[in-house]
């Protein structure tokens, strides 16, 4: 009985580099932001800290998606929904923190409710002023939705594009529902104009740094969880399911349970990502549910390398950095550049950035072993 191999396997080359980079970010970014003079080329301005934080929340979403898509073959086109739900849970907490500082000065009700003549908070808003409860909801709401949705779908053996499309239908339906003002969640405008988080101003430099560090930690933890899952026997079963679902059943594995665990964990990770995203960008609204957003998340994973975890995170960061930079630098041409990036990656890096790199490395290794094996074979003859 030994657990070491798993821990070791978890920390393979890629993983170690990844965690190392995250650790460095968590330390260096705040240091640079706080102590380097603004004129220094190494200074990270506060706005860039939040931007980085946003990329890293997206990275966590991509990681979550890769867990189900890369390792279990569930191409979810609705993961943005879990992200958005986590975001809304956090947004509701932040709204409650505004208190009487709203436009209409109502002690409890958010402005949009005052405006729509709501008399009291609807029941589903209660408790969101308490951070631990809100934090729980960040996990519970997406998790529960994933559990119910997954239980229905996996039990009925909905697979492949059929599953993809119903996840898309799910997020689409949620988008329409959240657009409705009657939902009591701010309609099209969503939730915005946040003031405090845990008593600190969301706009304060220190809060922004703390949120950034929290995101780094969440990403590292998310990576740890995902990596643990995929390197354990569980992960091998997931891959088996991806390759030959029915064969796995004939070995006695309850495929639906395996999928359900992965899907739910992944949804909760996405929820956390959304919750970290919201205070850093300052708004959550129904367009986060739009199918295009979820498809984009799939695109990040594909760019980075499906089934590599690190690649998914990297893909999210690369694509979003490119987007941030291009929308400013080439405002009228950036779609060409981004579109071209996607095409080039598919054509020349068929397994995504990380996937192709590690494949190259493995090939080199295989070449080496093949050589030695060849020698051995000759010797045997």
């Amino acid at each position, binding site marked *: 009985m030994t657990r070491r191999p798993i821990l070791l396997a978890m920390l393979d080359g890629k993983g170690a580099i990844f965690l190392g980079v995250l650790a460095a970010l968590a330390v260096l970014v705040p240091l640079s932001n706080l102590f380097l003079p603004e004129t220094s080329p190494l200074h990270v301005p506060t706005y860039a800290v939040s931007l980085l934080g946003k990329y890293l929340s997206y990275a966590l979403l991509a990681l979550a998606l890769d867990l189900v898509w890369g390792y279990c073959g569930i191409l979810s086109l609705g993961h943005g929904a879990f992200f958005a739900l986590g975001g809304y849970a956090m947004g509701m907490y932040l709204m409650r923190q505004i208190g009487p500082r709203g436009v209409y000065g109502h002690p409890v009700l958010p402005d949009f409710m005052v405006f729509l003549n709501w008399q009291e908070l609807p029941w589903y808003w209660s408790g969101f002023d308490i951070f631990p409860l809100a934090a729980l909801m960040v996990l519970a709401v997406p998790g529960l939705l994933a559990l119910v949705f997954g239980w229905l779908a996996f039990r009925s053996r909905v697979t492949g594009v059929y599953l993809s499309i119903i996840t898309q239908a799910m997020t689409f339906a949620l988008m329409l529902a959240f657009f409705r003002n009657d939902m009591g969640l701010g309609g099209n405008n969503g939730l915005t104009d946040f003031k405090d988080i845990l008593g600190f101003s969301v706009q304060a430099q220190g809060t922004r740094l703390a949120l950034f560090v929290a995101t780094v930690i969440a990403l590292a933890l998310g990576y740890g969880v995902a990596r643990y899952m995929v390197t354990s026997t569980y992960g091998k079963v997931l891959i088996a399911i991806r390759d030959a679902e029915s064969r796995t059943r004939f070995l006695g594995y309850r495929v639906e349970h395996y999928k359900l665990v992965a899907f739910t964990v992944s949804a909760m990770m996405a929820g956390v990502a959304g919750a970290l995203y919201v205070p850093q960008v300052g708004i959550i609204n129904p367009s986060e549910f739009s199918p295009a957003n979820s498809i984009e998340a799939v695109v990040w994973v594909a760019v980075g390398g499906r089934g590599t975890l690190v690649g998914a995170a990297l893909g999210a960061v690369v694509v979003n950095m490119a987007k941030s930079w291009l929308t400013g630098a080439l405002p009228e041409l950036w779609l060409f550049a981004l579109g071209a990036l996607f095409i080039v990656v598919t054509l020349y890096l068929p397994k995504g950035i990380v996937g192709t790199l590690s494949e190259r490395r493995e*090939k080199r290794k*295989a*070449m080496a072993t093949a050589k030695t094996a060849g020698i051995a074979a000759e010797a045997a003859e």
Partner: protein
Amino acid sequence: MLSVDSIDLHYGAAQALRRVSLDAEAGKVTCVLGRNGVGKTSLMRAIVGRQPISAGRIGLDGADISRLEPYDRARRGIAFVPQGREIFPLLSVRENLETGFAPLKSGDRHVPDEIFTLFPVLKDMLGRRGGDLSGGQQQQLAIARALVTRPKVLVLDEPTEGIQPSIIKDIGRAIDYLRGKGDMAIVLVEQFFEFARDLCDTFAVMERGQIVLSGTRDTMVEDDVRQRLAV
């Protein structure tokens, strides 16, 4: 007719064929024998163009076809019955057969009656989807489908696999009949030794990606071959 000249074949870094040469003549059955994983299927893949060769040359009627795409080789008369059958699962049996029309001139686009004489079971199943057939039925369909193209070279990779004894005999008779017509070269990969022995005009035994023994039926020493096929 078909000549394979000293070819190498790699899967990534791993070499599966080494300097393999083989000739197949019209009206003759050329058998390739060998244990699991020695490279028989790889050789067939090289012939039909599914896997590129890294050295050597494959010729058909004197022309070099080594670089041709699989469909161009098919159009020049190489038909293939792959290991694992590869029936088009959602096409009906009739449609599976009709895919063989592709290299034919429009006047020739019909399924020859002799095919149903060889495999009568197919006649009853024309409307059934290929994927629904039993394994043995699919194997028969795969051979029939190859024959629809009226090939010059028929490449069969373990055609008796999963077939009931009586039909194996039928297939043997069919191959014999096709050989008898004299215009078709037949390359046959087979593990079923007796079957191969009864049909072969020439044979080649493979080991570790190489041909280690070859000759004609008359010169074949059965025990040598059996030896090579033993575990």
